[in-house]
């Protein structure tokens, strides 16, 4: 049988290392039946469509039964001349960078102070909580806090700080409020993520540092930071993947009735409006929407590659 011929090298290897070669062949036979259903579903409905998305970005097509025509880079050119696209692009980059920096600072602060804090486990669970909650619910609650008659303005008024009362959801401030909401909902995850790397550091290293007279900040500088660099790189990559996609919280701020104001649009929102044609009954622009998807993938890849550079070359070995 063909399968046997193919499997022979592996079978020979198996015989050399362990005992039963026959058993090994039998186990190899189980490999494909267990793997294929998932692999085929993944390939057919995820990988192939994703590649097809790239193809679509060079075409104009509205689905089966409509005319398919190649348009080259016209979709990209149109995006570049679209003010909506450019502002949503800048917003997305701004959000990913600003929130990214905020998350990094919060994670560093936590690494400095949380390791030795009392009730550290409780603090971690409580700050993680918003990450578990639907971003729609987070967006609704946060936007309600900031609405003109909402809690924030009420409290500012009660505190006699009327000067600070703002139309928080107006075009000038709404995106900053959204970014604050993103920080609130995501920060706990990154704190717990980096702390799980801190937990892996042998306590003896901190002991030595302490005996040498290092304070908590120096312990962070000379023990924690060098030994958690890989995790910080991973966290940065994860944030890049997540931040670029920011969608729900923006939609929750503005609802589905109106289209989100340009000041608050991210690339994902802009793409959604082009896929559905928006609520104002516009035409779907699938080619351009696909091009936005390609652009977002490109940014994600660039950010992942950049975050890899934080990573250390040599693998860490404890002991």
């Amino acid at each position, binding site marked *: 049988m063909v399968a046997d011929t193919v499997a022979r090298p592996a079978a020979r290897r198996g015989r050399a290392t362990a005992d039963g070669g026959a058993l090994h062949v039998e186990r190899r036979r189980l490999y494909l039946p267990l793997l294929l259903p998932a692999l085929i579903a*993944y390939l057919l409905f995820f990988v192939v469509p994703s590649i097809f998305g790239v193809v679509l970005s060079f075409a104009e097509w509205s689905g089966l039964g409509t005319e398919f025509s190649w348009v080259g880079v016209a979709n990209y050119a149109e995006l570049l001349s679209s003010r909506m696209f450019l502002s949503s692009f800048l917003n997305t980059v701004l959000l990913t960078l600003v929130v990214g920096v905020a998350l990094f600072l919060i994670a560093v*602060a936590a690494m400095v102070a949380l390791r030795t*804090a009392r009730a550290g486990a409780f603090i971690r669970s409580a700050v993680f909580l918003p990450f578990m909650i639907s971003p729609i619910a987070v967006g609704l609650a946060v936007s309600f806090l900031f609405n003109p008659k909402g809690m924030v303005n009420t*409290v500012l008024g009660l505190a006699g700080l009327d000067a600070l009362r703002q139309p928080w959801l107006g075009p000038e401030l709404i995106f900053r409020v959204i970014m604050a909401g993103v920080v609130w909902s995501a920060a706990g995850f990154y704190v717990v993520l980096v702390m799980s790397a801190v937990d892996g550091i042998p306590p003896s290293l901190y002991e030595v540092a302490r005996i040498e007279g290092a304070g908590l*900040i*120096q312990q962070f500088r000379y023990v924690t930071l060098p030994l958690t660099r890989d995790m910080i790189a991973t966290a940065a990559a994860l944030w890049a993947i997540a931040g670029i996609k920011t969608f729900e919280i923006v939609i929750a701020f503005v609802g*589905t*009735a109106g289209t989100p104001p340009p000041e608050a649009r991210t*690339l994902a929102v802009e793409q959604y409006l082009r896929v559905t044609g928006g609520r104002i009954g516009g035409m779907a622009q699938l080619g351009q929407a696909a091009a936005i998807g390609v652009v977002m993938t490109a940014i994600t890849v660039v950010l992942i590659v950049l975050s890899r550079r934080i990573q250390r070359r040599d693998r860490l070995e404890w002991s």
Partner: protein
Amino acid sequence: MTGSARHRPAEVFGASLIVLIRAGLWLWVLFNLAMVLWVMLNSVKTSRSIFANPVGLPDTWMWENFATAWSTSGLGAATLNSVILVTVSVALIMGLSVPAAYAVARLGGRSSGPVATFFAVGMSIPFQAFAVPMVLISVGLSRFMIDWITGAWDPRVTVALFYVVLSLPFSVFVLIGYFRSLPGELEEAAALDGATPFRTFWQIMAPLARPGITTVAVLNVLTLWNETVIVLMLVPNQRMQTLNVALLNFYSNMQYTSNWGGLFAGVVIVVLPMIVIYLWFGRRIVNGMTQGIGK
């Protein structure tokens, strides 16, 4: 504490900085708990008292907010949609990913590394790269089924299909890690006792991996329960939409209904099940999300 006799300015600065950070962390904790409490209280207030009395206890406890949200605003039907969609999808995800992960981790030989990477790549592709093809497949699929096969089609089935395939990369990848961490001696012992490879998988290794399998299932429940954009894109019919989308619609009608208490009741309906799951599985969810990914 540090045992050093001299207090250099840097140390004093460091110590006060740490006190400051800890105070900040506690404030953050308090804020989170206060937010949960605030949303819950708002859900049983009248819309007027939500604005007039933003921090206090409700004047009258408006439990009927939940009733109006549930029936009048259609959150009840949406909850049912969400529950069924999440249950069916997660069952399918696990049915596909557990055997596949076992195969890759334990049976794959030389090809297992590349296959694992192939699945992992899917985790870093943004959903938006997939969105347009997804919409086209959805339209094509429903037209094909209506014209040729069943004569009718429910877009929720398409949503379940995409929920499953989009969750496969993460699920398979994390489960591969769990299966790799199990001791191989047990498989050999089972084989010596005459168990077939499939029985070894089904009756020995899968039960051993149960903590990992449960964690991945719970994480998928969380993700899919909170999912919004796929339903927004694929399901135009409001009666078929899920809880998050129904909540958005509710919010969009707020300028006509002004039923803010009902809106907060809706938020509680969305949020409470996840908080219960979090309290129940707590550490496991946190570890699954962070350690599974960190590796």
